[in-house]
Protein backbone atom coordinates (compact mmCIF):
# COMPACT_ATOMS: atom_id res chain seq x y z
CA UNK A 1 0.00 0.00 0.00
CA UNK A 2 1.39 3.43 -0.92
CA UNK A 3 2.44 5.58 2.04
CA UNK A 4 0.05 8.31 1.03
CA UNK A 5 -2.90 6.18 0.01
CA UNK A 6 -6.08 7.80 1.29
CA UNK A 7 -4.28 11.03 2.18
CA UNK A 8 -5.84 13.03 -0.66
CA UNK A 9 -9.36 12.06 0.41
CA UNK A 10 -8.56 12.89 4.01
CA UNK A 11 -7.10 16.26 3.01
CA UNK A 12 -10.04 17.17 0.79
CA UNK A 13 -12.56 16.21 3.45
CA UNK A 14 -10.94 18.09 6.32
CA UNK A 15 -8.85 21.01 5.05
CA UNK A 16 -11.74 23.49 4.87
CA UNK A 17 -12.96 22.65 8.33
CA UNK A 18 -9.49 22.98 9.86
CA UNK A 19 -8.92 26.28 8.06
CA UNK A 20 -12.18 27.53 9.53
CA UNK A 21 -11.03 26.49 12.99
CA UNK A 22 -7.60 28.06 12.69
CA UNK A 23 -8.71 31.42 11.34
CA UNK A 24 -10.33 32.60 14.59
CA UNK A 25 -7.12 31.58 16.39
CA UNK A 26 -4.72 33.46 14.09
CA UNK A 27 -7.02 36.31 13.03
CA UNK A 28 -5.26 36.23 9.66
CA UNK A 29 -6.52 34.08 6.83
CA UNK A 30 -3.13 33.76 5.08
CA UNK A 31 -1.48 32.74 8.32
CA UNK A 32 -4.19 30.17 8.95
CA UNK A 33 -3.76 28.79 5.40
CA UNK A 34 0.00 28.50 5.88
CA UNK A 35 -0.31 26.78 9.26
CA UNK A 36 -2.94 24.32 8.06
CA UNK A 37 -0.87 23.44 5.00
CA UNK A 38 2.21 22.89 7.16
CA UNK A 39 0.23 20.65 9.52
CA UNK A 40 -1.00 18.59 6.58
CA UNK A 41 2.56 18.37 5.20
CA UNK A 42 3.66 16.89 8.51
CA UNK A 43 0.69 14.55 8.51
CA UNK A 44 1.61 13.32 5.03
CA UNK A 45 5.00 12.11 6.25
CA UNK A 46 3.34 10.05 9.00
CA UNK A 47 0.27 9.05 7.07
CA UNK A 48 1.00 5.32 7.12
CA UNK A 49 0.51 5.46 10.92
CA UNK A 50 -2.00 8.30 11.13
CA UNK A 51 -4.51 6.67 8.82
CA UNK A 52 -5.09 3.99 11.44
CA UNK A 53 -6.02 6.57 14.07
CA UNK A 54 -9.68 6.88 15.00
CA UNK A 55 -9.62 10.60 14.21
CA UNK A 56 -6.50 11.61 12.27
CA UNK A 57 -8.02 15.08 11.96
CA UNK A 58 -7.49 15.56 15.70
CA UNK A 59 -3.76 14.99 15.23
CA UNK A 60 -3.59 17.57 12.43
CA UNK A 61 -5.58 20.04 14.52
CA UNK A 62 -3.25 19.58 17.45
CA UNK A 63 -0.18 20.18 15.27
CA UNK A 64 -1.82 23.24 13.72
CA UNK A 65 -2.66 24.64 17.16
CA UNK A 66 0.95 24.13 18.28
CA UNK A 67 2.22 25.86 15.15
CA UNK A 68 -0.15 28.77 15.76
CA UNK A 69 1.13 29.07 19.33
CA UNK A 70 4.76 29.01 18.12
CA UNK A 71 4.07 31.75 15.62
CA UNK A 72 2.22 33.74 18.24
CA UNK A 73 5.26 33.59 20.52
CA UNK A 74 7.54 34.66 17.68
CA UNK A 75 5.30 37.62 16.94
CA UNK A 76 5.32 38.62 20.59
CA UNK A 77 9.10 38.80 20.48
CA UNK A 78 8.99 41.26 17.61
CA UNK A 79 8.86 44.93 18.36
CA UNK A 80 5.70 46.96 18.11
CA UNK A 81 7.24 48.92 15.27
CA UNK A 82 7.75 45.75 13.30
CA UNK A 83 4.18 44.77 13.91
CA UNK A 84 2.99 48.13 12.69
CA UNK A 85 4.93 47.91 9.46
CA UNK A 86 4.31 44.21 8.88
CA UNK A 87 1.78 42.86 6.41
CA UNK A 88 -1.85 43.47 7.27
CA UNK A 89 -3.79 40.42 8.32
CA UNK A 90 -6.12 39.05 5.70
CA UNK A 91 -9.73 38.77 6.73
CA UNK A 92 -12.52 37.19 4.75
CA UNK A 93 -15.77 39.16 4.45
CA UNK A 94 -18.20 38.42 7.22
CA UNK A 95 -20.95 40.18 9.08
CA UNK A 96 -19.90 43.15 11.13
CA UNK A 97 -20.67 41.18 14.27
CA UNK A 98 -18.30 38.44 13.26
CA UNK A 99 -15.64 40.99 12.31
CA UNK A 100 -15.95 42.59 15.71
CA UNK A 101 -15.34 39.15 17.18
CA UNK A 102 -12.12 38.80 15.13
CA UNK A 103 -10.89 42.08 16.55
CA UNK A 104 -11.86 41.06 20.08
CA UNK A 105 -10.22 37.63 19.73
CA UNK A 106 -6.97 39.28 18.68
CA UNK A 107 -6.79 40.96 22.07
CA UNK A 108 -6.82 37.61 23.90
CA UNK A 109 -3.65 35.66 24.70
CA UNK A 110 -3.13 32.80 22.25
CA UNK A 111 -3.94 30.03 24.76
CA UNK A 112 -7.29 31.62 25.62
CA UNK A 113 -8.14 31.95 21.92
CA UNK A 114 -7.26 28.30 21.35
CA UNK A 115 -9.33 27.14 24.30
CA UNK A 116 -12.33 29.16 23.17
CA UNK A 117 -12.14 27.89 19.60
CA UNK A 118 -11.65 24.27 20.61
CA UNK A 119 -14.46 24.32 23.14
CA UNK A 120 -17.00 26.63 21.54
CA UNK A 121 -16.38 26.06 17.83
CA UNK A 122 -14.93 22.56 17.57
CA UNK A 123 -17.25 21.46 20.40
CA UNK A 124 -14.59 19.53 22.26
CA UNK A 125 -15.35 18.74 25.91
CA UNK A 126 -13.03 20.35 28.47
CA UNK A 127 -11.09 17.10 28.89
CA UNK A 128 -10.25 16.95 25.19
CA UNK A 129 -9.31 20.62 25.07
CA UNK A 130 -7.02 19.88 27.98
CA UNK A 131 -5.45 16.94 26.13
CA UNK A 132 -5.07 18.94 22.92
CA UNK A 133 -3.39 21.90 24.63
CA UNK A 134 -1.45 19.75 27.09
CA UNK A 135 -2.65 21.54 30.24
CA UNK A 136 -4.82 20.48 33.20
CA UNK A 137 -8.60 20.78 32.92
CA UNK A 138 -8.67 23.44 35.63
CA UNK A 139 -6.38 25.62 33.54
CA UNK A 140 -8.65 25.20 30.51
CA UNK A 141 -11.67 26.22 32.59
CA UNK A 142 -9.84 29.26 33.84
CA UNK A 143 -8.72 30.25 30.31
CA UNK A 144 -12.26 29.84 29.03
CA UNK A 145 -13.73 31.94 31.81
CA UNK A 146 -11.16 34.71 31.37
CA UNK A 147 -11.46 34.66 27.60
CA UNK A 148 -15.23 34.86 27.67
CA UNK A 149 -15.10 37.68 30.19
CA UNK A 150 -12.74 39.71 28.02
CA UNK A 151 -14.81 39.07 24.90
CA UNK A 152 -17.96 40.08 26.69
CA UNK A 153 -16.37 43.30 27.89
CA UNK A 154 -15.18 44.17 24.39
CA UNK A 155 -18.31 43.13 22.56
CA UNK A 156 -20.83 44.51 24.99
CA UNK A 157 -23.74 43.10 26.93
CA UNK A 158 -21.63 41.13 29.39
CA UNK A 159 -24.66 39.71 31.09
CA UNK A 160 -25.97 38.41 27.81
CA UNK A 161 -22.95 36.42 26.69
CA UNK A 162 -23.90 32.85 26.25
CA UNK A 163 -21.77 29.99 25.17
Amino acid at each position, binding site marked *: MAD*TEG*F*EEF*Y*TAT*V*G*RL*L*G*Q*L*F*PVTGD*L*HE*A*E*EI*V*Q*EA*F*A*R*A*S*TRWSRLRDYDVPEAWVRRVAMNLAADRGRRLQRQTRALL*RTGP*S*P*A*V*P*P*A*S*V*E*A*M*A*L*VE*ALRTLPMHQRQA*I*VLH*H*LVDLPIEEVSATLGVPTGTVKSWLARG*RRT*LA*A*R*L*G*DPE*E*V*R*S
Partner: protein
Amino acid sequence: MLDLRERLQELADAATRDGTTPGPAHAIRRGRQHRRRIAAGVASLLLVAVVAGVAGTGQLGNQPSRPVTPATTPPPAPDPQERTDKRRSGSLEEDAFRQLTSELRKCPGGSSIRADLIGSVWSEKYQRLWMVAAKQPPAQGTRFCWTSGLFDATGNGSRWGARRVTSLTNPLTSVGGRSNSDPWVIEGRVSKEATRLQLRFWDGRAPMDLAIIKAGNGYPVDFYAGLFQQGPTSSQKGGWAAQTLTAFDAAGRTVATCRVGLRDDGTPKCPGN
Protein backbone atom coordinates in the same frame (compact mmCIF):
# COMPACT_ATOMS: atom_id res chain seq x y z
CA MET B 1 -27.59 38.98 22.11
CA LEU B 2 -24.04 37.80 21.69
CA ASP B 3 -23.88 34.17 20.68
CA LEU B 4 -20.26 33.17 20.72
CA ARG B 5 -20.74 29.84 19.01
CA GLU B 6 -22.79 31.35 16.19
CA ARG B 7 -20.27 34.09 15.48
CA LEU B 8 -17.31 31.71 15.64
CA GLN B 9 -19.11 29.48 13.18
CA GLU B 10 -19.69 32.42 10.86
CA LEU B 11 -15.98 33.25 10.96
CA ALA B 12 -15.09 29.63 10.31
CA ASP B 13 -17.51 29.47 7.38
CA ALA B 14 -16.08 32.67 5.90
CA ALA B 15 -12.53 31.31 6.17
CA THR B 16 -13.55 27.97 4.67
CA ARG B 17 -15.32 29.75 1.83
CA ASP B 18 -12.60 32.29 1.04
CA GLY B 19 -9.44 30.49 2.07
CA THR B 20 -7.25 28.81 -0.48
CA THR B 21 -4.98 25.88 0.11
CA PRO B 22 -2.70 24.47 -2.57
CA GLY B 23 -4.02 20.92 -2.35
CA PRO B 24 -2.94 17.51 -1.07
CA ALA B 25 -0.20 17.02 -3.67
CA HIS B 26 1.52 20.16 -2.43
CA ALA B 27 1.24 19.00 1.18
CA ILE B 28 2.83 15.67 0.24
CA ARG B 29 5.66 17.40 -1.65
CA ARG B 30 6.24 19.73 1.25
CA GLY B 31 6.30 16.80 3.66
CA ARG B 32 8.92 15.08 1.52
CA GLN B 33 11.03 18.23 1.48
CA HIS B 34 10.84 18.27 5.27
CA ARG B 35 11.98 14.68 5.41
CA ARG B 36 14.90 15.37 3.07
CA ARG B 37 15.91 18.37 5.17
CA ILE B 38 15.78 16.30 8.35
CA ALA B 39 17.79 13.52 6.69
CA ALA B 40 20.36 16.06 5.49
CA GLY B 41 20.53 17.52 9.00
CA VAL B 42 21.08 14.09 10.57
CA ALA B 43 23.72 13.26 7.95
CA SER B 44 25.56 16.49 8.63
CA LEU B 45 25.44 15.84 12.39
CA LEU B 46 26.86 12.36 11.82
CA LEU B 47 29.58 13.83 9.64
CA VAL B 48 30.46 16.36 12.34
CA ALA B 49 30.51 13.54 14.91
CA VAL B 50 32.77 11.39 12.72
CA VAL B 51 35.14 14.27 11.99
CA ALA B 52 35.17 15.19 15.68
CA GLY B 53 35.82 11.55 16.55
CA VAL B 54 38.72 11.33 14.14
CA ALA B 55 40.12 14.55 15.52
CA GLY B 56 39.66 13.22 19.04
CA THR B 57 41.43 9.96 18.18
CA GLY B 58 44.24 11.98 16.68
CA GLN B 59 44.62 13.86 19.93
CA LEU B 60 44.67 10.65 21.90
CA GLY B 61 47.49 9.40 19.66
CA ASN B 62 49.41 12.61 20.34
CA GLN B 63 49.04 13.66 16.73
CA PRO B 64 48.58 17.33 16.02
CA SER B 65 44.90 18.08 15.97
CA ARG B 66 43.38 19.16 12.70
CA PRO B 67 40.75 21.83 12.54
CA VAL B 68 37.30 20.41 12.13
CA THR B 69 35.75 21.58 8.94
CA PRO B 70 32.12 22.45 9.40
CA ALA B 71 29.88 20.08 7.52
CA THR B 72 28.04 21.67 4.67
CA THR B 73 24.52 20.72 3.72
CA PRO B 74 22.67 21.95 0.71
CA PRO B 75 20.39 24.85 1.60
CA PRO B 76 16.74 23.82 1.92
CA ALA B 77 14.69 24.22 -1.21
CA PRO B 78 12.76 27.47 -1.22
CA ASP B 79 9.28 27.02 0.08
CA PRO B 80 6.87 27.44 -2.82
CA GLN B 81 4.28 28.84 -0.43
CA GLU B 82 6.26 31.98 0.31
CA ARG B 83 4.29 35.05 -0.68
CA THR B 84 5.93 37.53 -3.00
CA ASP B 85 5.69 41.28 -3.33
CA LYS B 86 2.39 42.05 -4.97
CA ARG B 87 3.51 45.36 -6.45
CA ARG B 88 3.53 45.27 -10.20
CA SER B 89 4.01 47.72 -13.01
CA GLY B 90 1.10 49.63 -14.48
CA SER B 91 -1.56 51.79 -12.90
CA LEU B 92 -3.06 51.09 -9.52
CA GLU B 93 -6.41 50.29 -11.11
CA GLU B 94 -4.88 47.81 -13.53
CA ASP B 95 -3.02 46.19 -10.72
CA ALA B 96 -6.09 46.03 -8.48
CA PHE B 97 -8.24 44.64 -11.28
CA ARG B 98 -5.67 41.98 -12.04
CA GLN B 99 -5.82 40.87 -8.41
CA LEU B 100 -9.61 40.79 -8.40
CA THR B 101 -9.68 38.91 -11.70
CA SER B 102 -7.55 36.25 -10.12
CA GLU B 103 -10.13 35.89 -7.30
CA LEU B 104 -12.93 35.61 -9.83
CA ARG B 105 -11.30 32.60 -11.46
CA LYS B 106 -12.67 30.63 -8.52
CA CYS B 107 -16.20 31.34 -9.72
CA PRO B 108 -18.21 28.82 -11.72
CA GLY B 109 -17.08 28.95 -15.31
CA GLY B 110 -13.45 29.58 -14.31
CA SER B 111 -11.62 31.78 -16.77
CA SER B 112 -14.08 31.02 -19.58
CA ILE B 113 -16.29 33.88 -18.40
CA ARG B 114 -14.73 37.30 -18.61
CA ALA B 115 -14.35 39.36 -15.45
CA ASP B 116 -15.92 42.83 -15.60
CA LEU B 117 -14.52 45.81 -13.80
CA ILE B 118 -17.70 47.24 -12.29
CA GLY B 119 -16.07 50.30 -10.81
CA SER B 120 -13.79 51.71 -8.21
CA VAL B 121 -13.70 54.55 -5.73
CA TRP B 122 -10.70 56.41 -4.39
CA SER B 123 -10.74 57.80 -0.87
CA GLU B 124 -8.64 60.93 -0.49
CA LYS B 125 -9.05 60.80 3.26
CA TYR B 126 -7.70 57.30 3.63
CA GLN B 127 -5.66 57.19 0.39
CA ARG B 128 -7.29 53.90 -0.54
CA LEU B 129 -8.86 52.52 -3.68
CA TRP B 130 -11.91 50.30 -3.33
CA MET B 131 -12.73 48.28 -6.41
CA VAL B 132 -15.50 45.86 -7.33
CA ALA B 133 -15.35 43.31 -10.15
CA ALA B 134 -17.81 40.63 -11.16
CA LYS B 135 -18.62 37.89 -13.61
CA GLN B 136 -21.96 37.74 -15.33
CA PRO B 137 -24.09 34.63 -14.95
CA PRO B 138 -23.30 31.86 -17.43
CA ALA B 139 -25.83 31.46 -20.27
CA GLN B 140 -29.24 30.48 -18.92
CA GLY B 141 -27.94 31.07 -15.41
CA THR B 142 -29.08 33.59 -12.87
CA ARG B 143 -26.26 33.36 -10.39
CA PHE B 144 -23.37 35.72 -10.66
CA CYS B 145 -20.13 36.14 -8.84
CA TRP B 146 -18.42 39.23 -7.48
CA THR B 147 -15.46 40.31 -5.46
CA SER B 148 -13.92 43.48 -4.13
CA GLY B 149 -10.77 44.77 -2.56
CA LEU B 150 -9.23 47.71 -0.80
CA PHE B 151 -5.80 48.79 -2.01
CA ASP B 152 -3.29 51.40 -0.97
CA ALA B 153 -1.49 53.59 -3.49
CA THR B 154 1.13 50.92 -4.17
CA GLY B 155 -1.42 48.24 -4.99
CA ASN B 156 -1.03 46.36 -1.74
CA GLY B 157 -4.20 45.60 0.06
CA SER B 158 -6.87 43.19 1.04
CA ARG B 159 -9.15 41.52 -1.42
CA TRP B 160 -12.18 39.52 -0.51
CA GLY B 161 -12.74 36.09 -1.92
CA ALA B 162 -15.21 35.63 -4.74
CA ARG B 163 -18.81 35.70 -3.54
CA ARG B 164 -21.49 33.79 -5.38
CA VAL B 165 -24.90 35.38 -5.40
CA THR B 166 -27.56 32.71 -5.50
CA SER B 167 -30.57 34.69 -4.32
CA LEU B 168 -31.73 38.17 -5.13
CA THR B 169 -34.48 38.32 -2.54
CA ASN B 170 -32.54 40.71 -0.31
CA PRO B 171 -32.52 44.28 -1.63
CA LEU B 172 -29.60 45.23 0.58
CA THR B 173 -26.72 43.11 1.87
CA SER B 174 -23.72 44.07 3.93
CA VAL B 175 -20.38 42.74 5.03
CA GLY B 176 -17.66 44.55 6.88
CA GLY B 177 -14.01 44.01 7.41
CA ARG B 178 -10.63 45.56 7.75
CA SER B 179 -6.95 44.93 7.77
CA ASN B 180 -4.85 46.26 10.60
CA SER B 181 -3.72 49.49 9.06
CA ASP B 182 -6.82 50.10 7.00
CA PRO B 183 -10.04 51.90 7.75
CA TRP B 184 -13.11 49.73 8.17
CA VAL B 185 -14.92 48.86 4.98
CA ILE B 186 -18.63 48.35 4.76
CA GLU B 187 -19.81 47.05 1.43
CA GLY B 188 -22.38 44.93 -0.30
CA ARG B 189 -24.98 44.93 -3.03
CA VAL B 190 -28.10 46.99 -3.29
CA SER B 191 -31.24 47.00 -5.39
CA LYS B 192 -31.03 49.02 -8.60
CA GLU B 193 -33.88 51.18 -7.32
CA ALA B 194 -31.57 52.74 -4.78
CA THR B 195 -29.99 56.06 -5.62
CA ARG B 196 -28.76 56.93 -2.17
CA LEU B 197 -27.39 54.86 0.67
CA GLN B 198 -26.91 56.20 4.16
CA LEU B 199 -24.97 54.71 7.05
CA ARG B 200 -25.97 55.79 10.55
CA PHE B 201 -23.80 55.50 13.63
CA TRP B 202 -24.33 54.95 17.31
CA ASP B 203 -21.92 57.50 18.53
CA GLY B 204 -23.63 60.70 17.49
CA ARG B 205 -21.53 61.46 14.43
CA ALA B 206 -23.33 62.62 11.29
CA PRO B 207 -24.73 59.92 8.99
CA MET B 208 -22.51 59.10 6.04
CA ASP B 209 -23.54 58.61 2.43
CA LEU B 210 -21.93 55.57 0.83
CA ALA B 211 -20.81 55.37 -2.80
CA ILE B 212 -23.16 53.40 -5.04
CA ILE B 213 -21.45 51.83 -8.03
CA LYS B 214 -23.83 51.25 -10.94
CA ALA B 215 -23.26 47.83 -12.43
CA GLY B 216 -25.07 48.31 -15.73
CA ASN B 217 -27.61 46.09 -17.43
CA GLY B 218 -25.54 42.93 -17.25
CA TYR B 219 -26.10 42.66 -13.51
CA PRO B 220 -29.34 42.60 -11.54
CA VAL B 221 -27.95 44.70 -8.67
CA ASP B 222 -25.62 47.59 -7.98
CA PHE B 223 -22.79 47.64 -5.45
CA TYR B 224 -21.71 50.02 -2.73
CA ALA B 225 -18.87 50.72 -0.34
CA GLY B 226 -17.97 53.07 2.45
CA LEU B 227 -14.88 53.57 4.57
CA PHE B 228 -14.93 54.73 8.13
CA GLN B 229 -13.09 54.63 11.41
CA GLN B 230 -14.50 53.36 14.63
CA GLY B 231 -14.98 56.07 17.21
CA PRO B 232 -14.21 56.07 20.89
CA THR B 233 -17.49 54.32 21.53
CA SER B 234 -18.18 52.81 24.89
CA SER B 235 -17.38 49.20 25.50
CA GLN B 236 -21.11 48.56 25.75
CA LYS B 237 -21.27 49.18 22.03
CA GLY B 238 -18.38 46.91 21.31
CA GLY B 239 -16.25 49.69 19.85
CA TRP B 240 -18.29 49.30 16.69
CA ALA B 241 -19.78 52.62 15.67
CA ALA B 242 -21.98 51.74 12.67
CA GLN B 243 -25.60 50.88 13.31
CA THR B 244 -28.05 50.98 10.38
CA LEU B 245 -27.92 51.17 6.65
CA THR B 246 -30.78 52.65 4.62
CA ALA B 247 -31.25 52.72 0.86
CA PHE B 248 -33.47 55.43 -0.67
CA ASP B 249 -34.90 55.68 -4.17
CA ALA B 250 -34.83 58.81 -6.33
CA ALA B 251 -38.02 60.10 -4.71
CA GLY B 252 -36.51 59.77 -1.25
CA ARG B 253 -38.57 56.72 -0.29
CA THR B 254 -36.93 53.99 1.72
CA VAL B 255 -36.09 50.98 -0.44
CA ALA B 256 -34.60 48.93 2.38
CA THR B 257 -33.12 49.37 5.80
CA CYS B 258 -31.18 46.94 7.92
CA ARG B 259 -28.93 46.74 10.93
CA VAL B 260 -25.16 46.54 10.68
CA GLY B 261 -24.54 47.31 14.34
CA LEU B 262 -23.92 44.91 17.15
CA ARG B 263 -26.94 45.86 19.24
CA ASP B 264 -30.29 44.52 18.25
CA ASP B 265 -32.62 47.48 18.14
CA GLY B 266 -35.42 45.65 16.35
CA THR B 267 -34.18 46.51 12.84
CA PRO B 268 -33.58 43.33 10.85
CA LYS B 269 -29.97 42.39 10.43
CA CYS B 270 -28.40 43.01 7.01
CA PRO B 271 -27.75 39.67 5.35
CA GLY B 272 -24.22 39.02 4.12
CA ASN B 273 -23.05 38.23 0.59
